[in-house]
């Protein structure tokens, strides 16, 4: 799986795949490559309330630490147990099995926020 046209992106190099009120969130291939070999992922617990823009997790590589920001406010409904067991999934398949969390928002209209970019805007951001 790779970046799709239907994904939303943030300036923090995260992607959102939206279905109804739930967004699946991960980091982009660009972020994964910048981080290097990911060795540890720390994610919020299911049921945790998260606030847009706040740090909710950590993605650690052999040489640096990336933070996972909540791109929207809501409730964590799922955290990817597989990526915690096998952090290399973040490098191998950032848009697929390397996803991080699923967040349910109260109102899907937040997904229309200006802070969330479409693919072309994100590609422009990373200079592709």
């Amino acid at each position, binding site marked *: 799986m790779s970046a799709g046209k239907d994904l939303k992106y943030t300036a923090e190099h995260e992607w959102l795949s939206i279905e109804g009120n739930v967004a699946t969130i991960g980091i982009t291939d660009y972020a994964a490559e910048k981080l290097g070999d990911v060795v*540890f992922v720390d994610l919020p617990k299911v049921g945790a309330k998260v606030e847009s823009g706040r740090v909710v997790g950590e993605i650690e590589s052999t040489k*640096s630490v990336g933070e996972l920001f909540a791109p929207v406010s809501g409730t964590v409904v799922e955290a990817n147990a597989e990526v915690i067991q096998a952090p290399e999934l973040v490098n191998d398949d950032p848009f697929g099995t390397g996803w991080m969390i699923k967040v349910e928002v109260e109102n899907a209209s937040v997904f229309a926020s200006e802070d969330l970019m479409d693919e072309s805007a994100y590609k422009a951001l990373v200079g592709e």
Partner: protein
Amino acid sequence: MKAGDSLTGFAGRHIGTGPEAQSQMLQLLGYDSTDSLMAAAIPASIQLGEVTSKLPEAATETEALAELRELASKNRVLRSMIGLGYYDTFTPAVIKRNVLENPSWYTAYTPYQPEISQGRLEALINFQTMIAELTGLDTANASMLDESTAVVEGMLLARRASSVESNTFLVDQDSLPQTKALLEHRAAALGIQLHYTAYDQSPPPGDIDVFGAFIQYPGSSGRVWDPTEVIDAVKAQGGLVVVAADLLALTILKPPGEMGADIAVGTSQRFGVPMGFGGPHAGYLAVRTGLERQMPGRLVGVSKDADNQNAYRLTLQAREQHIRREKATSNICTAQVLLAVMAGMFAVYHGPVGIKVIAERVARSTRALAHAASEGGHTVQHGNYFDTLSLETVRSADDLVSRARDAGYLFFKVDDNHVQFSVDETTSNTDLQNLARVLGDESSESIEASQLDLETWLPGSLLRNSEFLTHQVFNSHHSESSMMRYLKSLADKDYALDRGMIPLGSCTMKLNAATEMEAVTWPEFGGVHPFAPAHDVAGYLELIAELQDWLAEVTGYDAVSLQPNAGSQGELAGLLAIRTYHLSRGDDHRDVCLIPSSAHGTNAASAVLAGMKVVVVACDELGNVDLADLREKIAEHASNLAALMITYPSTHGVYEQEIRAITDAVHEAGGQVYIDGANLNALLEFSRFGQFGGDVSHLNLHKTFCIPHGGGGPGVGPVAAKSHLAPFLPSHPLAQILPGSSDSEQGRPAHRNIVSAAPFGSPNILPITWAYIRMMGGDGLKRATASAVLAANYIAKQLEPHFPVLYTGKNGLVAHECILDLRPLTERTGVTVDDVAKRLIDYGFHAPTMSFPVPGTLMVEPTESEDLVELDRFIDAMVSIKSEAEKVADGTWSATDNPLVNAPHTTAILVEEQWSHPYSREVAVFPSKHSRSHKYWPPVRRIDQAWGDRNLFCACPPPESFA
């Protein structure tokens, strides 16, 4: 300089480039003298000009040693039984000669290049395994700075890991006095409340919430008791339990891990490391599974190399301050590697049986002395003890202490009626006879270690049943031949200064001269206790006072404290001094610390631990502090500005022109200026921090002043300050008064801003720096500075056509180091900074600093100690590697199979029957003439960093895994 000086004086030996070589180098750079080079490089506004140095004229090596002998003779080595965390020990001579006095071990750097550091990494894995097994916990780190700071780190770890909201930490009333002092100061800076309790009389109160608790085991007074219930109670509340445990006692007593403790800390000093008037020694810290990522300090783990063989490396580095900055688990950068290696080897040499024999003898001797004390009319305070007895004296404490002293023994006076003393490995039967007489036991003709069952005076439930040190490494090398060869085999795997230059930028790997090292192992310096009476350590105190004066002189400050035992601790001490200075003036709100984005991550981590808030100041595209952004940040935080921390010359290796404008702007806003002295070696005797706006600095004696790096410690990080901050520099509750000091016994604050367990940090290695300054004199130090700057500029100039030099200052010059930008090469050829670093190993070199302070670059610091031949060899190797990279770019070699990505090459790969690579075996291992005649063979191929982090294993791997 007079002709011939370079061969007769010490400076000429210390400085690698002689007059002829230097004029050749200067010619290349277009200068006629080092003076004109320095005048062109350093901003005119901070140049020192002609001053008369207060340093004594340079002494010869013979003269300096004679003076050190004289100082040593003023120390009186009595038999210390003071205890309190420091015990006399026999350093096995095989370890002293082959480790402590062996440059293969003491001149190595921190094992950042693991492929060429397998020997000391194995030694550290031995240490970690020893600590984990003795404490009964799962993972131990590669050592801490000392026991008391390890307790503080344990407290901070507990706070990070505990889910309890409380800010209160329970502390054992029966803790070491220096530990209490450190806990109090460090807790106060962070708003942590300490609640002291005598656990046996009043178990943890259920009505106060705590995030953790600290237990000293056995107690400072020697009392042995079972803390299991206390541990259970604290854990039931959600708190974490930190236990400081005596390693020797743990061979007999149930370890903290088996009693449910989360964290164990302590010191390994009594495993063969001399007391040295307080240090250096290796502290330790171990945790239960689940807390590894919260640990401070270095951690060695097992990974795999490219041939799938076991290989060691530093693991979980992302916890550390150089990556995580203000969010790091600690500000500590380094460990006490050389001392940890010694302690680990003590366990290898004695093995589990040998160590237990020592421990039992100590316990039985203590039992015999308890009996003698009772016979003498004293009251033994505790029924259960291991090595320490607390007595209520029959007459007075002074009377017993002076009787002991008359017989050649030092006891510790607790108060007017109480004395305590500790037995150690060196306590002989003759000592027992003498001590029985001191205690007034007239009943028996002779006394010897008790033959009674241990359960007579130790609770049966507390005796250890579990095995320890079961790995074969602790059960193989018990003969001296085997031990000597094991140490040799490990040293052979490593690259230290005895093989070639280590051009690590920001690390200053200069010569550690043999004469400087001489006094370290003299018994007059090694055999004294940190709390010995002042008149017994007069030589030490004189040396310390003199060294403090010299360091104040060369930095332009008024006062110096030698207490911090690492650069990070010097930073913390300096920032605490600033914080308490502001508090003393009622400026409680001044807590903002400005730090440039280019700063070493430790700066930010230290500021947080001093209770400050970090605000980052931007740098411009030339790598200098962005003055506009600085003024903006100052304006924004004007009323709360506490300090600016700035490194000079900068971490980019450049003399920033605007330094005066920067320090002035901070002072105008009421802030203090902290100048990080990590790069003082580029300034010494050409400029002084105190004269261009510095209020306080730390120095790294292990960089600028020749203390060897020891493979990753010891360090010494003195803090130096202007007079207005002098009252806030570190003190210690048990410090001796220095000659000429303004402190008096009565007027002295008990302990202000203490940062180390011992009053003067690590005095045993101070003779190294003393000897260096004594033998260089002001003129020699000045020549060293200029020679270091000359060497760096020479390398920059020679390599510029091949690798762009990222940052330069005035006249296109760098300071003492230069950053080679490899990013254009990487972009063009795919060859990375890692590939170049590992390929340098094949050429026989240690890589420069990788990706610090700028990712994708190499920072080269040649120091003044390398001669021109070695500098040219390095330059040739870099140029040759560049041309190899071009062959990858032009397709001669594939991007996935070339001598760079496959580097380093081992003997194992050389003897493979099928050689399938597109380059020859000769290109692989003998890429230069020098590498053919002086071959260093790396013991492993490139190590998989990610595998080790994902599969954490931090103890000796089972033998079968080496198949």
